[in-house]
């Protein structure tokens, strides 16, 4: 006897809704549209400094930023979190970064990117604005390669970027996991995609990254960064017929 078509879907009038969209408040959050613009800085730093040093630098930045957060809890692994951060807080973060000697390596890894995206909220790390505002062609080529990798959420770059975000949540003690979760073997993500456990961890990471997004930014369309990020791309290289 043949199966009824889409029998797991819920019928609402003439619409058949997939099960996931009927559970609670489902928010359609696109990895490409919203999360890549927010985490690209992590990928760039890891690309520049390698996995170990890149991870340390990223975490240091997130921890310092979190220390100076304003009233509402935000995830400072995400660039959009800095959009509405008051200038005073940004100054405090910058000063702290400077004290810890982190500004220089950050700029070394992100200057070219910030040149391309002058409206990026992370520009507060170069308050004197000494950028040339000229886009480095060599960097642009490399940047596009990195971005292509990130478009694929299952790529190594994407996986390690997401892992970095989640790792920072562990460091800040903002993430708890159940004892049977594959995430208890989190360090094995380094083996991705060569081992089964690393693939399971990666799967958990991909499933959970949306939960780290600052939903109120999305809901109220408060984040202009995601729009700015992609529209800047088409400004840099127009799409003409």
């Amino acid at each position, binding site marked *: 006897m043949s199966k009824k078509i889409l029998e797991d879907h819920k019928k609402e009038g003439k619409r058949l809704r997939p099960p996931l969209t009927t559970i609670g408040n489902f928010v359609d959050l696109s990895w490409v*549209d919203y999360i890549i613009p927010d985490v690209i800085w992590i990928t760039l730093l890891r690309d520049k400094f390698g996995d170990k040093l890149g991870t340390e630098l990223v975490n240091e930045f997130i921890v310092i930023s979190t220390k100076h957060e304003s009233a509402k809890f935000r995830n400072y692994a995400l660039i959009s979190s800095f959009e509405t951060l008051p200038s005073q807080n940004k100054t405090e973060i910058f000063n702290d970064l400077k004290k810890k000697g982190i500004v220089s390596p950050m700029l070394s890894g992100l200057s070219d990117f910030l040149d391309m995206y002058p409206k990026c909220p992370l520009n507060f790390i170069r308050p004197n604005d000494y950028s040339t505002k000229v886009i480095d062609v060599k960097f642009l080529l490399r940047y*596009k390669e990195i971005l292509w990798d990130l*478009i694929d959420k299952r790529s190594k770059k994407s996986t390690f970027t997401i892992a970095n975000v989640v790792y920072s949540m562990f460091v800040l003690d903002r993430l708890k996991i159940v004892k049977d979760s594959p995430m208890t073997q989190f360090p094995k993500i380094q083996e991705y995609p060569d081992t089964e456990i690393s693939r399971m961890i990666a799967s958990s990471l991909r499933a959970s990254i949306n939960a780290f997004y600052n939903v109120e930014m999305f809901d109220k369309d408060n984040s202009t960064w995601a729009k700015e990020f992609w529209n800047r*791309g*088409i400004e840099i*290289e127009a799409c003409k*017929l």
Partner: protein
Amino acid sequence: MKNKEIELNFSKIIEQYSDNLKNELKELWNGFKIDLSIKEQFEVIGGIIARQITITTHFASNSNIWTGDLAPIILRSLADNYINLAWILESPKDRAQKFILHGLGQEKLMVEHRKNQMISDGLNPDEDELIKFSEQWINSQRYTFLTDVNLGSWSGLSTREMAQQANCMDFCNFVYQPFSTAAHNMWNHVAKYNLRTSDNVLHKLLKVPVISEITSHLDYLDLAAKYTDKCFWIYYKKFPNDKERKSSYNILKEQLKELEKEINNKNGSA
């Protein structure tokens, strides 16, 4: 085998196919035991099959429209026509009546719209040739003032429901439905045929408009011929006779196969 020779042989096959179809229609019509007290039944069945053949023979003569963009529009029309026929054949007397009355009502509605528009434009509808012709056409079958206008579907059912009742759900699901996406210019046709993804990652996988080249596929001719053959098949299933039927579709397939063999042989030995 030279291209010109292939083209010529192919044209001959298509011409013969058209002729064969006309002969099949003649056989079908001449085989009718026409009862003029229910002549609508014969008119509708004959008309629908003639329509199917007309569309297919015109389609067959124009290889430029055997494309993913255009062929589905035609094929969907053929599918729709077939489902209509299949449903009518389940109860030809009253369903043929329904088909006719609905069409007359639609014509009446078009005439009224046109009259309205002409009056709005300050013109005299009584002087319009198209209105005169349409009204004459309606009146030759049923007085316009006695003709209902049905704003719903002609059968009172959706095409899907008709297909269900006529036991051709698979045809509806796998032919009518998919080709509807092209006929209605829906996203799942437009995005595949008229857009391509930008290869520049900075464009966030933006889909860019394209105008496709004309790439003809013989498969579409095969499908059109198949859906026309189905009309004869369903008719003879309902009204069998003891004559052996020579399917134009089967002849077409054999001849195309022969041509393909010839081409391969001559290319192989070239």
